[in-house]
């Protein structure tokens, strides 16, 4: 049960005010936290609870489905404890930024560049926030739900009608 998860218990003890939600689904524990304390929580998880590997860092666009449009997702793994944990944090479109996790895990550098490139989320204090997949002069962020799939300069595909 998620409530008995070692990491969840420790997080609830230390960051009770920052935790929005704890879910367990098929053995996967997800903790949703406020973005203001995201770096404190990630640092604590790495240094005190041995989540020493950031497997992936990505984002989800919930356009029109949630009040806060974007959701940052951090997939953590603890090599000593063989244990996984998912941390999520909502990011509003109006204030589309979140502190960078590069100081905690160096691998966050390129992963955050990818999220910036494709979703347009700004990572505060990131050492090198440039596009990584699209060309430097690209306009827009292609993985946003309101970005046209075939590019802004093309008539959208309408199945057999087009």
């Amino acid at each position, binding site marked *: 049960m998620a409530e008995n998860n070692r990491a969840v218990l420790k997080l609830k003890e230390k960051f009770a005010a920052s935790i929005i939600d704890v879910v367990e689904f098929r053995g996967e524990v997800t903790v949703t936290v406020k973005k203001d304390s995201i770096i404190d929580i990630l640092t604590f998880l790495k240094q005190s609870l041995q989540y020493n590997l950031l497997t992936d860092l990505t984002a989800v666009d919930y356009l029109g489905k949630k009040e806060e449009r974007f959701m940052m997702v951090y997939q953590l793994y603890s090599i000593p404890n063989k244990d996984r944990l998912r941390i999520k944090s909502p990011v509003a479109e109006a204030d589309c930024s979140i502190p960078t996790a590069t100081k905690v895990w160096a691998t966050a550098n390129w992963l955050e560049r990818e999220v910036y490139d494709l979703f347009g989320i700004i990572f505060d204090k990131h050492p090198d926030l440039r596009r990584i997949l*699209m*060309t430097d002069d690209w306009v827009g962020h*292609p993985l946003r739900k309101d970005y*046209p*799939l*075939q590019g*802004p300069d093309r008539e959208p595909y309408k199945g057999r009608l087009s």
Partner: protein
Amino acid sequence: MGVENPLGENIITTSLDKLVNWSRKSSIWPMTFGLACCAIEMMATGASHNDLDRFGIIFRASPRQSDCIIIAGTVTKKMLPVIKTVYEQMPEPKWVIAMGACACSGGVFDTYSVVQGIDEALPVDVYIPGCPPRPEALLFGLMKLQDKIWNDKNSFGSAVGLGTRIDGFTA
């Protein structure tokens, strides 16, 4: 060659154009350049089972020594300038083969990041459909290119600076 053989058995008479065309079509040297999954099939065609060498087709690792580029795979918008540079570095005369659905039309990748057919940027001589085309299809495409080169007009003249080469057509 001719019905009469006034010069003996071991001598043929032909035009200089045909001589140039014959040497060009028998030594198509493609640029080594793979872009996506189609490149794997291109490598299979070059390997011993299908053996491109028997057509005089030898992959070259430098555009300066190539006279054909096989666009084998998905062309992304980010890769397009690179392909254009490589193509421009190849000496004339040069030919382009679009191998596979992606190079011909963008294929299944009807998206913002993929060029919808390499013919938007380069003059394509042979289109090979398929996803990916089998080695037999690539061989057939290369043989079509050989036919086309064989039918070129004024290839000798253009090589010595008289006029321009007129592209051949295949049936």
